[in-house]
């Protein structure tokens, strides 16, 4: 484990009871996280991609301490005080209380910690507003009086207020327009440099992840199926799911390609976990040799100590993708 590791998750499992019988006994369970191992280093941006419902937001909630895992542990790796962690949610509309003026929204985390006068809080709010590019005059307005991008700036200001070490960004730009998305991504990058923040960036927009993060984790059905440097993974996916995902991402070049018949990708259910490889049903490469067994997350090769994959087959070798090097404009 590297020295600058801030937090490490090991073998996190989260289940939700979804149906109870009349005695209150659980009849069926949603297996949302099924063994997550992950380290987050200081100052890095870790991207997490995966399809809808694979447990990304749940993972964020575990990190925030909003959920207690049923198994596994979250360990904070610093010697001194526990690092502060904050979160920015996807939808800036619903993550800001519509009835609070902006300065109160921004300073809510420190207000809760206590010990600041009203005047101090306003000053802090004003400072933060400037940092995220909001005008100080706006502090008395209410969230609905702002555009989507400005609201997301407010949310970021609020996350910065307690001086965090880590910020979890749960789809921070997916509710925003392209032109605004660019502003927010730039802002996040600037803030990271200025404050040596760590980001955990959750998104299903691969290009955003690619732009922002050095390292990414690909999630599938509550597990990390692939982990490694962004450029490596995008170029040479080692897991069939990653490959499928990357194939589906539309790019700016060429036409939509028809690869085989139009099949119906039914998303996996998390009520009953498969006994073998979780991706078995959708996998083009499946065989009867090892795929019926549960797959551990293993190191891809001895020399690439940072690259991990949850597939015993080595599709990596022949999966070199043509990554577009062409840039528009």
């Amino acid at each position, binding site marked *: 484990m590297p020295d600058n590791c801030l937090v490490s998750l090991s073998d996190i499992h989260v289940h939700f009871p*979804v*149906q*109870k*019988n*009349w005695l209150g006994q659980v009849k069926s369970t949603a297996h949302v996280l099924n063994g997550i191992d992950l380290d987050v280093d200081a100052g890095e941006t870790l991207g997490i991609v995966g399809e809808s419902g694979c447990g990304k937001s749940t993972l964020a909630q575990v990190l925030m301490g909003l959920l207690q895992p049923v198994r596994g542990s979250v360990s904070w790796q610093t010697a001194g005080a526990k690092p502060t962690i904050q979160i920015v949610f996807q939808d800036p509309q619903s993550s800001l209380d519509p009835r609070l003026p902006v300065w109160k929204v921004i300073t809510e985390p420190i207000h809760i910690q206590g010990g600041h006068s009203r005047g101090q809080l306003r000053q802090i709010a004003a400072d933060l507003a400037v940092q995220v590019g909001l005008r100080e005059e706006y502090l008395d307005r209410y969230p609905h009086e702002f555009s989507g991008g400005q609201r997301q700036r407010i949310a970021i200001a609020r996350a910065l207020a307690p001086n965090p070490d880590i910020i979890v960004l749960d789809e921070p730009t997916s509710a925003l327009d392209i032109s605004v998305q660019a502003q927010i991504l730039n802002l996040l990058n600037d803030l990271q440099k200025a404050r040596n923040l760590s980001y955990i960036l959750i998104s299903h927009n691969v290009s955003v992840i690619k732009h922002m993060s050095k390292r990414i984790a690909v999630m599938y059905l509550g597990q990390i199926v692939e982990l490694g440097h962004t450029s490596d993974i995008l170029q040479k996916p080692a897991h069939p799911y990653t490959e499928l995902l990357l194939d589906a991402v539309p790019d700016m070049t060429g036409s939509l390609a028809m690869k085989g018949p139009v099949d119906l990708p039914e998303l996996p259910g998390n009520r009953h976990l498969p006994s073998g490889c979780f991706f078995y049903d959708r996998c083009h490469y499946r065989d009867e040799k090892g795929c019926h067994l549960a797959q551990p997350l293993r190191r891809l090769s001895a020399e690439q100590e940072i690259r991990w994959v949850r597939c015993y087959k080595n599709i990596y070798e022949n999966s070199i993708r043509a990554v577009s090097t062409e840039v528009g404009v």
Partner: protein
Amino acid sequence: MSVFQIISKRLAGLVFVVLGVSVITFIVSHLIPGDPARLIAGDRASQAMVDAIREKLGLNLPLYEQYWLYLKGLLQGDLGTSIRTGRPVLQDLLAFFPATMELAVVSLILAILIGVPLGVLSAVYKDKWMDQITRSISVMGISMPAFWLGMGLIIIFYGNLSWFPAGGRLSQGVAVPPFVTGFYLVDSLLAGQMKTFYNALWHLVLPAVTLSFVHLGVVSRQIRSSMLEQLSEDYIRTAKAYGLPKWQVILRHALPNALIPSVTVLGLALGDLLYGAVLTETVFSWPGMGLYVVNSIQALDFPAVMGFAVLVSFVYVLLNLLVDLLYLVIDPRIKEVG
């Protein structure tokens, strides 16, 4: 949730509610100053006589013991004996309950038959004159003191026009149908007594109109707001985008969806109708529980008041159960949701 689950959950609730209701009414009715024994014995009775009666009724026991005795009876379906009439409370209540229930049910049907179309029209023609009129009607209904309306109707339709009878359930000389459900309308049809049926219907008109007018407002207001909600939903846009005729969209798509959240309101409205009947019954000499209860409270007839409260809350919980079951039928989504 399965039918079984719903029923078992509600039944557990029923026990709790009935217990709670009995405790609260017990406490409250014993808080009322006054001595029922004295009431029975009469003004001029001596203290010795009053004491004797008190002892006979068990009113000299400590309160918790009285309650315990009451509870024991309750478990055996015995609501105690009315202090005022000397008859078992259950027997008294059952004599009055069907009349109240018939009035309430007919009023509810009336309120729904008129209120739902009004609500739909109001939503479809939102902010048009149609909406203004239907909303005026419903606000009038909600704001109308029922007893006042009832008195007015009697004066006009009995006093001046003689179109309807002044009160009661049947005219004198009209055969009372054999007891099956206690609803004269139903029983007379079952017995084939058409004359009784028409007579009973004729007697029901004014009280039912009075009582339903109030709830018509509640119903149409509810339907209006849930219709408005549904009409702004995406699937309505879809239906329109595929060229379905306006009224098909409204009646076959929006209305069923709007009725779903309204079922709770309608079910509870029946409960309210039961209580609301108290005042209406007084005005229309309707032989229901209303008058009985008012008299019982004034006569400190604890067992009767408690019996009434327990019975009505029982019905109320059963109505909730019915509403839950109705959801199973009309809302396919329920089965899935935990």
